[in-house]
């Protein structure tokens, strides 16, 4: 059976034109997806069933046993961390908020090791943005700064940016100027009209120089961040001459020296460009629903990440309440990890801290976080085996389809069951008295 207009559940492009062939209850073929999406949809070896670590070894358990043990861990903790969320659907994320409220935990997403600094930058300056279709239909000038979509968002240029044809962009690539700013040549820079190489860690200075040039203040040094003044002047001209400019940025800005200050500066540059012409800016969100967890947390708690429910009401202070902060300070005494792999993606010493506390993992696949976990609960794959909502990198919400049945429970169901178990165990230990 062929399913059309399937939505890919890998990266923030959320391509919704995928064709999937389903045979004998499995995805047998995928068309239009890039290598990342195809790999995801064709699937990998999964965790077979729930496991609980007994005497150091993971041992098979039933789902209910796993739910109850997970609930036990969360209840016994004084400051549990509920982390991940970026690769599952909003319906599961919403259940997660309920669970975090119930156990007084800290709920954080993978944004804090990714575009968290962008969120902070937005809190400083706001975000002058648009949907990707605006870029498709209008953008004649595109800047990719500190990102490599050719490897991280492979169909971005085809569907939304450099190469796509739109109403006011009938010439597609030929009618556009593509600028890449990076510290190295990449696959993306090969498709660019201009590559501006900067020294590592100099994004802030280079952006400042551009802001000065854009505003007509030409007093900048002869070289900034390894870039000659003449090249900076030329780049500023390209930006100001745009009819519609789009500035896409990635982890090159958020992970480098300066972090959120780099984003703050980039957002300011784009805001100032709007005095001269039309310009939008957009962070290249990595996971397919990291934007979604930010939206869910914001409408539920007022804050988009690193939300601490210990006081019974939301408290937000990245630098204090982000996952890496809590672990580094050994403040978290239990962790529920869902739809993420911090063991792989956190600094090693932070992972060491994670290893010292009981960890519950909810994931379809084994990964290094499994090696640290006390409870492992395999889930259905959202977007393939479970339907639900996801938010694209530009903030548009789409509904992920369920293509095949699965014996695994969905993330939403798992979190819901853990929540029920928490409530039940709490009631029991309160001597059966109602809360």
């Amino acid at each position, binding site marked *: 059976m062929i399913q059309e207009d399937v939505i890919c559940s890998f990266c923030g492009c959320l391509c919704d034109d995928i064709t999937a062939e389903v045979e004998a209850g499995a995805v047998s073929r995928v068309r239009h997806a890039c290598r990342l999406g195809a790999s995801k949809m064709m699937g*990998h070896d999964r965790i077979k069933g729930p496991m609980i670590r007994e005497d150091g070894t993971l041992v098979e358990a039933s789902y209910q046993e796993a739910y109850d043990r997970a609930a036990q861990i969360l209840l016994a903790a004084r400051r549990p961390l509920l982390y991940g969320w970026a690769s599952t659907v909003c319906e599961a994320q919403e259940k997660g908020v309920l669970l975090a409220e119930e156990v007084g935990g800290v709920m954080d997403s993978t944004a*804090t090791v990714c575009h968290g600094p962008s969120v902070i930058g937005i809190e400083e300056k706001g975000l002058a943005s648009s949907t990707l279709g605006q870029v498709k239909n209008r953008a004649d000038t595109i800047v990719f700064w500190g990102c490599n979509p050719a490897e991280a968002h492979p169909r971005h240029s085809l569907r939304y940016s450099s190469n796509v044809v739109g109403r006011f962009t009938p010439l597609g690539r030929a009618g556009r100027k593509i600028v890449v700013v990076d*510290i*190295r040549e990449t696959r993306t820079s090969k498709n660019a009209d201009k590559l501006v190489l900067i020294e590592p860690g100099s994004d802030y200075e280079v952006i400042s120089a551009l802001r000065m040039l854009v505003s007509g203040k030409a007093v900048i040094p002869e070289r900034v961040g390894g870039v000659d003044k003449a090249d900076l002047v030329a780049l500023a001209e390209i930006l100001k001459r745009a009819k519609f400019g789009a500035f896409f940025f990635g982890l090159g800005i958020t992970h480098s020296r300066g972090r959120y200050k780099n984003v703050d500066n980039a957002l300011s540059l784009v805001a100032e460009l709007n005095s001269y012409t039309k310009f939008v800016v957009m962070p290249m969100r990595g996971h397919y629903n990291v934007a979604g967890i930010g939206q869910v947390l914001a409408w539920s708690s007022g804050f988009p990440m690193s939300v601490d429910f210990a006081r019974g009401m939301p408290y937000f202070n990245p630098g204090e309440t*982000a996952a890496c902060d809590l672990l580094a300070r050994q403040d978290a005494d239990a962790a529920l990890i869902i739809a993420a792999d911090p063991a792989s993606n956190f600094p090693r010493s932070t992972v060491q801290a994670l290893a010292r506390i009981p960890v519950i993992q909810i994931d*379809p696949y084994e990964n290094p976080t499994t*090696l*640290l976990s006390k409870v492992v609960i395999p889930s259905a794959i959202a977007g393939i085996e479970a339907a639900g909502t996801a938010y694209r990198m530009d903030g548009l919400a789409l509904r992920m389809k369920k293509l095949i049945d699965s014996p695994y429970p969905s993330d939403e169901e798992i979190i819901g069951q853990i929540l029920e178990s928490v409530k039940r165990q709490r009631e029991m230990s309160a001597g059966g008295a109602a809360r």
Partner: protein
Amino acid sequence: MKAIMISGRTLAQGVACENKMSADFLAATSVCSLSQGDYQQLGLLEGKNVLLKNGFGQAVLSARSDPGLPAGVVFIPMGPWANALVGSDTGGCGTPQFKGVEVEVEATEAPVLGVRDLFRDITKGVEA
């Protein structure tokens, strides 16, 4: 030699990222790219591995040459090998500094560890 380490996404790393215990993931994320000049200068032509070290830790990776890299910059795909060299401090913003990390690089005969071995020290306490 001294270098600046950058970690980030690659296609191969992304393709393998839900299959992290596999040989593909190992191959994709335990490789360090160096500029042509640095690669030659360290004598890596014979397929030697590189040892990267800094105050946060160390890692042995396989090495390859990337003409797109400037001298003094090394690139490691995001993952546990890169993160052995990243510090836990978030500078008050919640996000560690995954890019622009100072490292010492030298050629080595030591082998690249597999995923499970890479975590052996960390999981000791868990598996006790």
